[in-house]
């Protein structure tokens, strides 16, 4: 009994590590296949444009709404906590830096996981369990070229553009909110923003968006193509995929300051 008690948790841990390594290996191979398909120009530009429309353009309203609310909340909470101890124009810097360095890219990524990542996993998962992926192979087409690559490339294009828009709207709503609640005018807001601004900040924000734009569809496609077990399997895999995408985004986000801000 003692032996099996000691063995149980370590076996479970070993299985988890094994599963994680399996995911990492399969995602690595998928990325390699995607790169190869893109370099060989095997991806239809029509399919990429269609996905840019579905993934990017159709996401604009929800991304802007989320970014607008983030700007308002940042401005109001910052003002509430600091107005008695710091000059009020500092709010300009707090809003701009928070939105550009962190809230803009991360919140846009979370919105895109819910709107696009989950959809890709469910769509490809349903295709897998209804033999549509097998049907593609049977007619000599590669699902990586036909299904995965247009989605990943479209997300890589769309994500930095969406984050740039989200940053602008977040700053704008933060500024308007500061004006109404703290009486901070636009001129003093941007004076404060310039005090702690680095020219590198916007690049940092868009670089984050670019990496998020690779990670989200890559995981979504990988999980979709691994789906097994009918409708229940599609539901289970989609949930697992969303959890994995959110965790990955947070890990990438945590790696960015030591890698790019030191």
């Amino acid at each position: 009994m003692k032996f099996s008690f000691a063995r149980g948790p370590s076996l479970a841990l070993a299985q988890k590590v094994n599963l994680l390594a399996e995911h990492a290996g399969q995602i690595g191979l998928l990325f390699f296949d995607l790169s190869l398909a893109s370099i060989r120009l095997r991806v239809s530009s029509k399919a990429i444009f269609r996905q840019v429309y579905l993934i990017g353009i159709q996401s604009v309203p929800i991304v802007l709404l989320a970014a607008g609310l983030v700007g308002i909340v940042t401005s109001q909470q910052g003002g509430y906590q600091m107005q008695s101890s710091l000059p009020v124009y500092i709010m300009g810097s707090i809003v701009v830096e928070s939105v550009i360095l962190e809230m803009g890219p991360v919140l846009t990524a979370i919105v895109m996981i819910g709107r696009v990542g989950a959809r890709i996993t469910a769509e490809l998962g349903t295709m897998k369990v209804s033999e549509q992926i097998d049907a593609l192979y049977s007619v000599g087409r590669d699902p990586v070229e036909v299904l995965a690559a247009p989605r990943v490339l479209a997300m890589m294009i769309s994500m930095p553009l969406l984050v740039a828009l989200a940053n602008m709207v977040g700053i704008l709503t933060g500024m308007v909110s500061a004006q109404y609640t703290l009486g901070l005018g636009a001129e003093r807001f941007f004076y404060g923003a310039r005090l702690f601004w680095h020219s590198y900040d916007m690049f940092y924000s868009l670089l984050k968006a670019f990496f998020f734009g690779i990670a989200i569809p890559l995981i979504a496609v990988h999980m979709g193509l691994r789906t097994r077990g009918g409708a229940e399997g599609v539901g289970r895999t989609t949930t697992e995929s969303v959890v994995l995408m959110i965790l990955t985004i947070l890990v990438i986000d945590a790696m960015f300051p030591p890698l790019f801000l030191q």
Partner: protein
Amino acid sequence: MSELTKKIAIQYQGIAKAFDTPVLSGIDLSVNSGEMFALFGPSGTGKSVLLKTTLSLIVPDRGDVLINGESVYFGNPDTLNTVRDIIGYVFQYAALFDSLSVAENVEMGLSERAIKEMGLEAVQERIWESLDLVNLDPGEVWGKFPAELSGGMKKRVGIARAIAGRPEILLWDEPTTGLDPVNTAAIERLIKQLSEELHVTSLLVTHDVEGGLEMCDRVAMLEGGKLRFCGSPEGFRNSEDAVVKAFTDRRAANAALDILDIR
């Protein structure tokens, strides 16, 4: 290559596959060129798995498949592409692409190379012909999406996609599953008609034993991951094997429940 090898279109050599439990345990089976061959067997015995190993949709743990004498798994890496060009696969539930129209679904049955060589007009003609061959009105279904079709029509579009590339071999994975008796008879007539008109080799996996025995030149039965019977339809009908008999005789089927330990 000998004359004898030339006559064999599909040859399964010692195919073994296990998922959680063994499904196929070393299947050796040959289908001759131009032949209609039916594969029967209880559910879950690996008939569809065997069919899928032909196109490497499922990779066997052991064994090989030869198509017209060429090894799918141990030969030239390009063999698989060639094999997929000359084989049409009809899926159990049609497996149509939901986001594509009927015409686009059928077009997917043509290889990219064939589409380039044929040109737009010839491709559209081929799609029209293929839909016509499966007794659908091309003008009516052309722009429709799979969700707008009945079960029988979906099966026909799936067949039209499989024959669009004018294959040498057709693999049918339970094409009549889920259809009413009238549609079942219609699809079976279509299978026979297409096999004769297009001069293809057909390997048919089916639970409809009577239909299979009527249509096919030879039949085989898989049971417990092994080949239980392989021979003529008459031989199947007259077999003394209790499990084989169970597929043609209702009373024998009840007796076979004990033999197969099915509760």
